[in-house]
């Protein structure tokens, strides 16, 4: 064991719930990827950064896009470069290894020290994507056909996988993960999160802003609920502009920071009976 259980306890700039902390430590101890889901803005991506910084490990980020293929995380064989080199007699074309570039997962495997690997937004890729990585994540190794070489993890990386979506991750994949759903922080937790971001926040302003924020989130008709990062931006805007705290609930200044859709702003105004003002 490289780790003692309970090594991860959050970091200075990231507030972690005991449940999440527990899940992280279980995943590290069992050597299984931790799959983290939750509403946008609940700090899924930041979790990996926090783990890396608090355990003093290197962080490798594999941002998944709709076009990402599982193989790209392992390695890419640059055929075109090799063909060009052979054309112009440049470099040693016989050495295929020169044209193999490791992807993020490959990098994590060959890293000298145990790294933290973040596979971000895995749900964005094609439905088969997670299944294509089963073997690699399970065995922590893969085979490069071109060089007949097996890349095996020197140190089993700590793998954190984030996802926004609900159901599409295949069962065999899920069975191999430790899972945690980050619930939207309650007022208590939110206060400690905000504390991390602000040094000199007036208590009254915070109180009023939080009240308004949770009221907005409770409005049923809005399509995109404001998240933590929007709340932080909003409080910052309120703070800089010096809006008096008692005015916040009255006309919701800078509502556009919280709500990104016009219909949502309308719905909230209707529900909360806001006064009209710019």
């Amino acid at each position: 064991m490289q780790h003692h259980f309970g090594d991860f306890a959050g970091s200075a700039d990231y507030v972690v719930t005991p449940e999440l902390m527990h899940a992280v430590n279980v995943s590290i101890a069992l050597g299984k990827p931790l799959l983290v889901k939750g509403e946008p803005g609940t700090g899924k991506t930041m979790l990996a950064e926090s783990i890396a910084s608090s355990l003093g490990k290197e962080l490798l980020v594999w941002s998944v896009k709709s076009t990402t293929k599982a193989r790209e995380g392992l390695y890419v064989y640059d055929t075109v470069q090799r063909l060009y080199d052979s054309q112009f007699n440049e470099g040693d074309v016989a050495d295929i290894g020169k044209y193999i570039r490791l992807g993020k997962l490959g990098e994590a495997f060959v890293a000298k020290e145990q790294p933290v690997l973040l596979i971000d937004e895995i749900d964005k890729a094609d439905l088969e994507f997670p299944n294509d990585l089963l073997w690699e994540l399970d065995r922590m190794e893969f085979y490069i056909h071109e060089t007949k070489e097996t890349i095996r993890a020197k140190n089993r990386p700590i793998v954190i996988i984030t996802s926004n979506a609900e159901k599409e991750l295949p069962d065999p994949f899920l069975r191999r993960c430790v899972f945690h759903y980050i619930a939207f922080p309650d007022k208590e937790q939110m206060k400690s999160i905000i504390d991390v971001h602000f040094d000199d926040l007036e208590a009254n302003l915070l109180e009023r802003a939080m009240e308004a924020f949770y009221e907005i989130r409770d409005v049923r008709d809005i399509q995109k609920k404001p998240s933590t990062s929007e709340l932080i931006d909003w409080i910052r805007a309120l703070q800089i502009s010096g809006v008096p705290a008692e005015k916040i609930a009255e006309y919701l200044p800078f509502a556009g920071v919280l709500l990104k859709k016009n219909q949502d702003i309308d719905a909230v105004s209707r529900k909360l009976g806001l006064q009209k003002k710019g």
Partner: protein
Amino acid sequence: MRSVANLACRKRAETVFIEFFYHLKEQKCNVSLTEWLDLMDALEQGLCGPSLVDFYYLCRSILVKSEAEYDRFDRAFALYFRDLKDATEIPEEVFAWLSDGLQRTKEELMEKWDPLTPRYGLEELRELLAQRLEEQKERHCGGNYWVGTGGTSAFGHGGFAEQGIRIGGEGRYRSALQIAEDRQFRDFREDEILDPRQFQVALRRLRQYSSTVPTEKMELDIDGTIDATSANGGFLKLAFEKPRKNTIKLLLLFDSAGSMLIHSRLCSALFQAVDRSTHFSDLQVYYFHNCIYEHLYKTPRCLRGEWVDTEWVMGNLSSEYRVILVGDGTMAPTELFAPGGNCMVGLFNEIPGIQWLKSIKTRYPHHIWLNPIPKSHWDHVFGHQTLGALSELFPMYELTVEGLTQGIKKLLSDQER
């Protein structure tokens, strides 16, 4: 010393543990043996603190893989441990269960499922078991194996349900049962209502890949390149091929009559999901009012003139389109069966609605009907006669994530008339 009472206690504890596994399965928690063994692995490594709360979180993080399942798990957990308390009133038994029952259970499970899990050798397990039994001699039944230096058992007197158990953080005291009974994840249950994203995810299954779709040739074709290069006298010539794309075309027909109003949230969720799905090769949406006649409307308001001829649609959209009809299917019987049944003022249909629907069914072999009315109400809802007739005509599914998923399977299955 190992007493008879001790053995009896162990026996009970083992049963308790195996029962918990089957209890979870019975409660439809999708727990696989792999995950169960992982849990035991974790317990063996001492990843579980002395409290039931730790045990609850450990179980949940390993056994449950979706927030939609959290609620089910919470209920199963609460139910099981409540029953246990009522049935036995011996909290120590739970200790024994956690510390010793594990090995035996593992072994029992292994014997049953050995071929599935080559990870653990039976011999190894026997050894571990023997080792445990050795240890067992030293302590009395229900020893504090799992208890930290604090000494007091978290499962102590008074039952673990009532007593608050510390889970860390600043003075937050809650018991596992309280957490489980809170059921704060009930909104995520899949058989209940949902947001567009869930539909979107379900819709993503509606796909069929092929490289015959007219797109640009974007992917490097290595074999082609080698051929082309050879043919080019050894000078490099790159060849590209088309990427494989989804070929599915979708025709969505939405009922937007007044009776659908109460389902508007649900329908809007589905509509948004379809709208956001970019993976279809083509998507056409039309609306109708209760039933389909000569016209299909271009907007949900179903205004006169804002329409196309139903025949035009059938003529222009080929039979490879998958058709999803969305509607409650409830209307006056005349609206479906009689000429002139169209309830829109000033419109008279020569052909009864059912005939139009039949033509659509014949024209498009892949078709389903999604109904926002819960299936359990189909037989006695107001307008159940027409709903019944329609469900005979079209494979009908509830408009839920599960219903949509089943429906999509149907749409993808082989031609069937």
